[in-house]
């Protein structure tokens, strides 16, 4: 698998480290339902079989976090962007 880093260009998988679902939005800690919201954000996943928005870190490159849209059935990379 090769990932197109917006800064470095297309690089081998081995240069990156994976975090997972890019959907994570940090909820407002002051909100009354903060506990439930944080639980959902941190623990629950759609985990789709198909296109998946995910975060990768260009560990051995420019150290950018990048957002990759990848098909989890075929590993086909569909799009790459800065988060």
């Amino acid at each position, binding site marked *: 698998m090769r990932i197109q880093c*917006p*800064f*470095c*260009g297309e*690089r*081998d998988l*081995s*240069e990156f480290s994976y975090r997972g679902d890019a959907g994570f939005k940090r909820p407002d800690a002051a909100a009354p339902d903060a506990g439930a919201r944080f639980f959902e954000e941190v623990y629950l996943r759609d985990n789709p079989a198909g296109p998946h928005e995910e975060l990768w870190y260009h*560990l*051995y*490159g*420019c*150290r*950018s976090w990048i957002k990759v849209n990848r098909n989890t059935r075929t590993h086909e990379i569909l799009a790459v962007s*800065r988060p």
Partner: protein
Amino acid sequence: MSDSLAFAPRSPLAAVGPAAAAPVSAPAPAAAAVPVAAPGVTAAVLDGFGLATVLARKGSSQTLAQRARERFGIDLPTAPTLSAASGVAFAGTGPGAWLAMADRGGNGFAAKLMTDLDGVASVSDQSDGYVLIRLTGARVRDALSKLVPIDLHPRAFKAGDVASTVASHIGVTLWRPADGPDAAHVFEVALFRSLARSFWHALADAAAEYGFAVHPP
């Protein structure tokens, strides 16, 4: 002070450096298709340079670029490339991130950058954090291609290009200065000093079949 004489800098490659470095190994026979004449790869450990990471402060990339032009006559690269002028060079290593280098000046260089770029960039001295190795020779690309997973063909990696990548489990940043007099490509590799000996071993290993020589800087 008496012992200030003894108080000298020391490269992690001092031990393996020119002297003790892997001997110029006999180039492998014709089978390996090496020019039996010269060693295919030569390395030099650089010294005395100044090095610093320069990170643009939020929303000040414009002013930073301007300062760089004023103070160093350099157009800050916004891509993984190298801009050099009068002994100073900036390598683009990430969005809003550069590795600034001066052939000489050691830690003083970072100090100067801090004042020159005050308020527009965060500067951290790395003069001691990295070792720099210059590589050249007819087979330098063959040797490097055993270490790094990037395309070093001149079509893909032109003179002045910069890449941060991994060389057998070791993070490196390398760039291509102008070719040497013998028209052979030149690469300079920067890596964390603590890993210098491991990298050196991997390099000597990779270059051995082409003949590996070490030159004093």
